[in-house]
């Protein structure tokens, strides 16, 4: 049977053992913290999706391709209006080349009767 003296002797070993507890290496600490960071990532994701929802106008702009597309559409519209008001000189030539001179003139002079009425007053 174990005597009291022997038990006290064992305590000296335990004391030495407690004093010699291994210290985690920097590498181990780094690995554990990397794991903690990696496991935390999915928990952060929902906060990103909770950003304010875009409004109807913003959604429409987004649907047609965003602001660059909108700017292109506006430019095309302005050019169309300008072409409509001031017929570019080159347009006759292009029409003649494609359709022939007579057809082109016919196409351009849409309302000759109106023109005559206008001259006669």
């Amino acid at each position, binding site marked *: 049977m*174990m005597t009291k003296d*022997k*038990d006290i*002797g*064992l305590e*000296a*070993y*335990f004391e*030495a*053992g*407690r*004093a*010699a*507890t*291994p*210290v*985690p*290496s920097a*590498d*181990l*600490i780094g*690995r*554990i*913290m990397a*794991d*903690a*960071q990696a*496991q*935390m990532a999915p*928990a*952060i994701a929902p*906060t990103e999706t909770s950003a304010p929802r875009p409004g109807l106008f913003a959604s429409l702009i987004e649907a047609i391709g965003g602001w660059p597309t909108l700017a292109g559409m506006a430019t095309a519209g302005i050019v169309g209006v300008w072409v409509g008001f001031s017929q570019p000189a080159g347009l006759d030539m292009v029409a003649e080349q494609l359709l022939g001179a007579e057809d082109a003139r016919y196409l351009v002079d849409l309302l000759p009767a109106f023109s005559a009425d206008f001259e006669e007053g």
Partner: protein
Amino acid sequence: MPFDAMSDTPDEALLVLYANGDFAAAQALMLRLTPRVLGYATRLLNDHAEAEDVAQDAMMRLWKVAPEWRQGEAKVSTWLYRVVSNLCTDRLRKRRTVALESVAEPEDGRASVVQGMIEQERAVALDAALATLPERQRQAVVLRHLEGATNPEIAQVLEISVEAVESLTARGKRALTVALADRRKDLGYHDDQG
């Protein structure tokens, strides 16, 4: 929560903070728990590199369980000791029983010093003697006498009754005394030294 303010925060609260996205809480938990986990694993495995792997694995399981942790059910340290016990048991099953003679001797020959054992030698002798104990006795003795766990805590870790813990610890200490006495004889010490 600032890192400095976490020194008095319980483990369980830190784990919940971490689960809510507080990385500083993970750092505080890591600094507090890793030395204990590593110390316990080292004593069970007697292999520092393998014990580091077990420590990392156990902490990884803690990070994973954090979102589902229910406060008040178990202490984080008790839960971790149980995880480490199981991981070490798995590893020990995969290798042969380590003979006392094969455990690392003091490398620099200080074992030949006759006038008493210095602290480091005692620690080495203890580790070698612990390695000769049956696994459950070793777990109980290490938790009780080196990790400072109470008998009810050890009962939770090993999933046995408190009476069984007391029995395991008593038998473990008896076996340890015998193993250390044998080692002292092998090293040429006499009973009245050290």
